[in-house]
């Protein structure tokens, strides 16, 4: 199949990626789904996880970690609105463990609901990321 899927990853700060791919696997809130050319239009929230970009069907996927966001598949292609993406190769496990314990400390010290919710959210994606890396 020669057809490709046009996809974009956009963060609030800039357009992160704008390319063609054979298939993109997205960690949807209700489970991973693979977006391929001519996928039915859909919209889904994303849970923290890895977006896998297959440039060709047999290629080794490029893996990007997203903290969450929204995916939209329209007839024109796939758009992922993500707050932040991290390249899996850039993740340092030791560094991450340090950050996790720091956030855990924040969570324990959180005095009000807002701070607690923020810390919980941070912890959630960090835990997922550390599981993937290890």
């Amino acid at each position, binding site marked *: 199949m020669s057809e490709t899927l046009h996809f974009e990853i956009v963060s609030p*700060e800039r357009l992160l990626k704008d390319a063609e791919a054979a298939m993109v696997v997205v960690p949807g809130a209700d489970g991973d789904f693979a977006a391929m050319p001519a996928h039915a239009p859909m*919209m889904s929230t994303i849970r923290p996880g890895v977006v896998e970009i297959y440039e060709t069907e047999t290629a080794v996927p490029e893996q990007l970690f997203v903290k969450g966001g929204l995916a939209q598949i329209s007839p024109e292609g796939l758009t992922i609105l993500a*707050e932040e993406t991290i390249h899996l190769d850039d993740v340092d496990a030791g560094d991450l463990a340090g950050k996790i314990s720091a956030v855990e400390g924040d969570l324990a010290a959180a005095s009000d609901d807002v701070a607690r919710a923020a810390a919980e959210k941070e912890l959630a994606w960090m835990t997922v990321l550390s599981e993937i890396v290890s």
Partner: protein
Amino acid sequence: MPSLKDLKVRINSVKSTQKITKAMKMVAASKLRRAQEAAEAARPYAERMEKVLTGLGQAVKDQPGASPLLAGTGKDDVQLVIIATSERGLCGGFNTNIVKAARAHIASLIADGKTVKILCIGKKGYGVLRREFEDRIIDLKDMSAVKKLGFGDAQPIAAEVLAMFDRGEFDVATLFYAKFQSALVQITTAQQLIPAPLNVAANENDAEDELAGAVYDYEPSEEAILDDLLPRNVAVQVYRGLLENAASEQGARMTAMDNATRNAGEMIDSLTITYNRTRQANITKELIEIISGAEAL
């Protein structure tokens, strides 16, 4: 009549002022370019967000149980006015314009008997508004430590606004900032943040070419997506406002400093003319003294 020495000192001081304004103009120009790039880079996200939100919002808005972030609380008694200004002065009418617009808005709200709460971002606007509305200002967000504005700077502000909304501390939130058009023109804009306004007109054009042929599947559900999206939208709008504001500030400063440099140039010219005339007058006077002295002999 100032002496020659006084004039010389004066000219030199204007010249050094001109050097400063010129340098500030150049700094503002390079910062403007960066701020503009950042504002443009942030545009795709905001646009796509708006598109998704408008499409979804229209479907859900009239249903009972729609998120209050979209449908409102049903009241508009307590108004939160968020005013974004700069941290530094010397940028022409930039802060004045924003504050003027905000003040008119606040005054009309008060006249309508509404309760107004003010949240200041940037201390320049705070300084002016404090004189008039001290008891209404709930907080000042100091952004002077921020070197390069990132989404991470807008998020805590949005989180705080949302937390206040959840506690029922206000019904409607409006953000005042200056939209960047060019270095010469900045448009003071009042944007409603909560409840999220639906840009119906803009969506109708899109609706025909994009949404008409496509029936979307929603996962997990329309409501769940909206619940996730609406708070994020507030952060994005705040971020966009701050970015536009940063670009506008540099644009306004560049123009103001350009004017100042030109004015200083004019002043130097006229001072130099006065200086030369005085010098010549002095020479003439001395000559007359010598001649008349010689004649008297």
